[in-house]
């Protein structure tokens, strides 16, 4: 099948996905702005002033990259999970299944939708942070962009895998509530893992979100609890595993073909 065909199909899925989350912008784009404003007010302004510095930076400045990454993770995940599950639930996924759209194009289209929403939310949260932080400097733009794109792709793929297995709407909220949120909170968004006592620091380093938050923080502030090369390697490895999983599931028709 030609590249032009694949590009048209990919563009169609991507436009459809973007149209979907933009149509319901009050549900998709406004809540992250409100939530992150509250985080900045409570953890940054009120609690942060008493904390002082973290990793040699004012606490408010320290949490900015983590909060942006937190928004990126939750929005990438929930966008793809809810969109793909709704398509399954309403059976309009069949529109794609009867057409000659290849599995990688379907995956890329949905991931593209997740990326678009996550990037818009990241810009919104960054703008919100300007109201609280005087100097938002960028230490390494390349690492910053690469980390945010890879992380968003990773969680878009994870959301897709969740939606493939989900049978009810409850099933797509279980992972964010019981897995994603705890891992994000323990992933160094609000603190440096070097503050954790011995064994807890070792445990914390098993959490993949720690590597994403720190690589992103390095891109912003130039500080990180982990080696940035290792962090990027971990993110790429997870991306590969999740892509192969999503591809295998869709190719076999798990949850979508009888």
């Amino acid at each position: 099948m030609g590249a032009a065909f694949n590009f048209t199909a990919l563009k169609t899925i991507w436009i459809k996905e973007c149209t979907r989350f933009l149509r319901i912008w009050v549900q998709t784009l406004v809540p992250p702005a409100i939530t992150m404003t509250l985080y900045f007010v409570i953890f940054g302004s009120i609690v942060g002033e008493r904390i002082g510095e973290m990793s040699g930076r004012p606490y408010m400045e320290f949490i900015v990259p983590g909060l942006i990454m937190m928004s990126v993770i939750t929005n990438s995940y929930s966008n793809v999970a809810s969109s793909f599950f709704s398509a399954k639930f309403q059976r309009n996924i069949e529109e794609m299944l009867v057409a000659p759209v290849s599995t990688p194009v379907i995956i890329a289209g949905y991931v593209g939708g997740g990326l678009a929403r996550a990037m818009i939310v990241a810009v919104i949260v960054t703008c919100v942070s300007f109201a609280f932080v005087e100097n938002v400097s960028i230490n390494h733009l390349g690492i910053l962009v690469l980390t945010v794109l890879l992380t968003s792709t990773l969680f878009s793929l994870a959301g897709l895998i969740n939606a493939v297995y989900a049978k009810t709407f409850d099933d797509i909220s279980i992972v964010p509530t019981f897995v994603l949120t705890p891992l994000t909170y323990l992933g160094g968004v609000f603190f440096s893992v070097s503050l954790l006592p011995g064994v807890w620091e070792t445990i914390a380093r098993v959490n993949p979100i720690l590597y994403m938050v720190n690589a992103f923080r390095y891109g912003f502030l130039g500080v990180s609890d982990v080696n940035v090369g290792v962090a990027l390697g971990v993110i790429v490895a997870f991306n590969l595993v999740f892509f192969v999983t999503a591809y295998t599931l869709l190719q076999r028709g798990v949850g979508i073909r009888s």
Partner: protein
Amino acid sequence: MKALSIKQLRKTYKGGFEALKGIDLEVEEGDFFALLGPNGAGKSTTIGIISSLVNKTSGEVNVFGYDLDTQLVDLKRQIGLVPQEFNFNQFETVRQIVVNQAGYYGVSRQVAHERAEHYLKQLGLWDKRDAAARMLSGGMKRRLMIARALLHEPRLLILDEPTAGVDIELRRSMWDYLEEINKQGITIILTTHYLEEAESLCRNIAIIDQGTIVENTSIKRLLATLNRETFILDLARDDDAALTPQLEGFTMRQVDEHTIEVEVEKSQGLNPVFEQLSAQKINVLSMRNKANRLEELFVDLVERGRAKQTTAGAK
């Protein structure tokens, strides 16, 4: 050329239910073909496999020479599917639904918009192009699914009960439209519960029951096998005498004071009925078939098929 060729197609669902027990089916290019069967007979499974929504257990499927196993992409391009249930995103607009569907087939957005205008106008949906699909009436939703299936200009259109729940006027206009596109060269496979629909639209027919094809022939040939029909006659007398018709050589049942049901063998013809009634000074005001002719055959074939399977099972 064969538009569709199915050989020994089998489908066993998880849990062991055998929906298709090795069916063979061929549909010629340009045909208007009816696939009939009672609920749960295997019609939707067959259509699901052809359109790759259902994984087959074994067997071969070819569409215009393209093999389902080895040339899936080319095969999919040939088919337009109108499923039984509404399966579009209810929150998208009519135009978004059809344009997106074309995009999945690699049709550029500009061409898709042009075709969308053409088909939506033909199907009377152009005024609703920017309305959300959920705001459409049932009949409009059915027509939207036909427009969506046609946008990539398939050679084979498969319609799974397209007129279910559609009022008579709209059903007739859909029949006209389907006949028109069939004349333009699109092969059509139709499943329906309205046997009148199959009789008036289709040239060839397959009847499927319990996962096996019990009949596969032309509608004309099938109707020629009908030996007996039941007619309902509305009667009246010129005088005030009681209406007590007598028909020798026919099985007759008086439904009410002015209506009778008469079973007529093909060899008998209707003339003797009219002659006898006329001799009794009874006028026939109107006459109609008790059931659709195809319906009588359908019931008969399905019953015979089941009896055959029961006998084979007992052996």
